[in-house]
């Protein structure tokens, strides 16, 4: 008889590597960081392959793809932040690639990098830093402080709140989308396991194959995966960089 009780384990990222000091855990490296390293290595290899042996006139397909990527991000930045801030294109491209592949890596069975708020929160903090930096550079430090007291000084707390809320919302948006997708997928997997177990109990089969092979888990989770993994990851990464570009462009005083 197989177990027909729904068991859902929703846990945060596991601790992969722990540094011990006299029997006590000093600090540990979480799954998110290890997945991040994996994504960085994969992206590094991909970029090395794409930009290997460049020619003035593109001869290989690789170079056409590389040029298309560069041109796409240059155009995007020029469109949203102005041509004076084209230096942001590599940063935007890096964030997009990291967010996209960090989310898409869940399709290989690993835990998504972006299903951890410390990861997306870091990116949001980077955006907040850039916004503040460009505001100070455009208006001067006192002009920046003065902008909080506009239109009237009474409204200052609300201005401070909205200053922090925009990047915080960006971080929570991508985290919430990816992690809720992960939780819903794991719930569906648990439900399908129970359904398969019930069918096995009904037929009365029990073997090594039916221990690990749950019949309803074929195909059905794939449809969910298309929405939660593919669609959600691409759209949310795109939204993240779009909002970053818009806010930083605004802070830099783009006309």
């Amino acid at each position, binding site marked *: 008889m197989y177990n027909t009780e729904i068991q859902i384990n*929703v846990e945060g990222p596991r601790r992969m590597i722990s540094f011990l000091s006299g029997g006590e855990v000093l600090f540990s490296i979480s799954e998110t960081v290890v997945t991040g390293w994996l994504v960085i290595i994969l992206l590094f290899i991909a970029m090395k392959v794409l930009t290997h042996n460049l020619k003035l006139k593109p001869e290989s397909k690789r170079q056409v793809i590389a040029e298309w990527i560069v041109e796409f991000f240059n155009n995007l930045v020029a469109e949203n932040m102005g041509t004076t801030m084209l230096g942001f294109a590599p940063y935007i491209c890096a964030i997009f690639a990291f967010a996209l592949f960090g989310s898409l890596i869940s399709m290989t069975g690993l835990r998504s990098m972006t299903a951890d708020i410390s990861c997306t929160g870091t990116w949001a903090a980077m955006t907040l830093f850039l916004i503040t930096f460009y505001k100070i550079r455009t208006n001067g430090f006192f002009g920046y402080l003065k902008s909080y007291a506009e239109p009237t000084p009474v409204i200052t707390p609300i201005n401070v709140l909205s200053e922090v809320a925009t990047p915080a919302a960006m971080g*929570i*948006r991508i985290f*919430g*989308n990816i992690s*809720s997708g992960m*939780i819903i997928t794991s719930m569906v997997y648990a439900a399908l396991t129970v359904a398969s177990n019930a069918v096995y109990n009904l037929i009365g089969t029990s073997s090594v194959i039916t221990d690990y092979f749950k019949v309803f888990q074929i195909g059905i989770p794939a449809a969910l995966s298309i929405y939660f993994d593919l669609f959600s990851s691409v759209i*949310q990464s*795109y939204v993240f960089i779009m*909002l970053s570009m818009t806010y930083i462009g605004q802070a830099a005083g783009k006309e």
Partner: protein
Amino acid sequence: MDMQTMSHEDVLTLAKAIVLCGQGIGAGLALIAGIGPGIGEGYAVGKAIETIGRQPEARSAATSTMFIGCAVAESTGIYGLLIGFLLLFANPFLKHLS
């Protein structure tokens, strides 16, 4: 069973039951947040289809803008969903019992 005859374990069990019950109700209420984005996104998609119908050449621009708008509008619903999941799986209030 009145309060005098209840042992400490009984009180704890009762308290835990109340907390779990509240968490369930709270998770359900949190998902009411899904109404707003549903209406909003439906409206946005409807307007985008209207635009495409009027100007078929603006199809790609309207579609990408609509997706971004939908993803932004969705965030309030996602916050509600997140709170619901936290209440269901993370049991944040149980550790206050002792």
